[in-house]
């Protein structure tokens, strides 16, 4: 069993109005030294797979098929082996 941590972000070329709004709010709170806030999504998923390579392939497929929309989003992920069986 493997655990994947997936990060989905808007592609750099795309304006992120949500991130912009949060940035403005932080500036109003006095944190003028934070910039370029980009909002994204974090997905955690357990994968039944025999090897890390297999797990990575599965995760890559589900990202491109459903979790991210390639028109506007990029994704990255980390995969790690789980030591203990996780209750489902």
């Amino acid at each position, binding site marked *: 069993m493997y655990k994947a941590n997936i990060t989905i972000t*808007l592609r750099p070329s*795309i*304006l992120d*109005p*949500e991130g912009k*709004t949060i940035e403005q709010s932080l500036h109003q709170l006095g944190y003028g030294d934070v910039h370029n806030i980009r909002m994204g999504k974090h997905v955690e998923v357990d994968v039944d797979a025999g090897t890390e390579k297999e797990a990575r392939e599965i995760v890559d497929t589900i990202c491109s098929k*459903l*979790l991210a*929309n390639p*028109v*506007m989003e990029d994704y990255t992920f980390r995969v790690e082996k789980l030591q203990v069986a996780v209750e489902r």
Partner: protein
Amino acid sequence: MSEKPRAAVVVFPGSNCDHDTFYALRKIMNADARFVWHKEEKLENTDIVVLPGGFSYGDYLRCGAIARFSPIMKDVVRFAGEGGVVLGICNGFQVLCEAGLLPGALLRNDHVRFVCKDVYIRVENADTRFTATCHEGDILKIPVAHGEGNYLIDEAGLEELKKNHQIVFRYCNQQGELTDSANPNGSIENIAGVINREGNILGMMPHPERAMEKLLGKSDGKKILQSVLESISNSK
């Protein structure tokens, strides 16, 4: 034997314009409309599929992303691929983009707020089955109601759209000018609705089914439903 155009209104969990759309098609346009639950696997006999507005699957993940894999969508893709007429309104437009039946994507509105108001849209291409009763340059008053209507497409895709006259509607002001202030969501080049290259699939953010009766304030949406239903009747 009924010669009325047959319309299938797909209902996803979270659709909320399905009844308005059904009413507009059946009671106002006199079409043979029926609902099709998203778990159905076959459309049965229909002349047009309408994907209505709403918040399918609670807009989880991305608007339309989950609905696009609903059981019925396989048959919608088949139907569309065979030249069947498909209209996606608002969330339906988002579903069509997610399904790859229309190019581009719909992002969060640039002002990050839900927008619910009447807007003006200009008919950019009247040579489609969805706009045949309009003229190029006509200005229609139709409401929008969405949080994610900010149409985006890459530069190459935009050039394709223009080259093939696939931009059907653009947001404009009352005078028909394409201004930034008339753009309710930040859509690229004020795009409000696009059609596929083959001309059988239209997606639009404004809600024609909410502009069907003078009594309720506006009826410009009728032109769109009338155009497409007539095109079906004429080909029967």
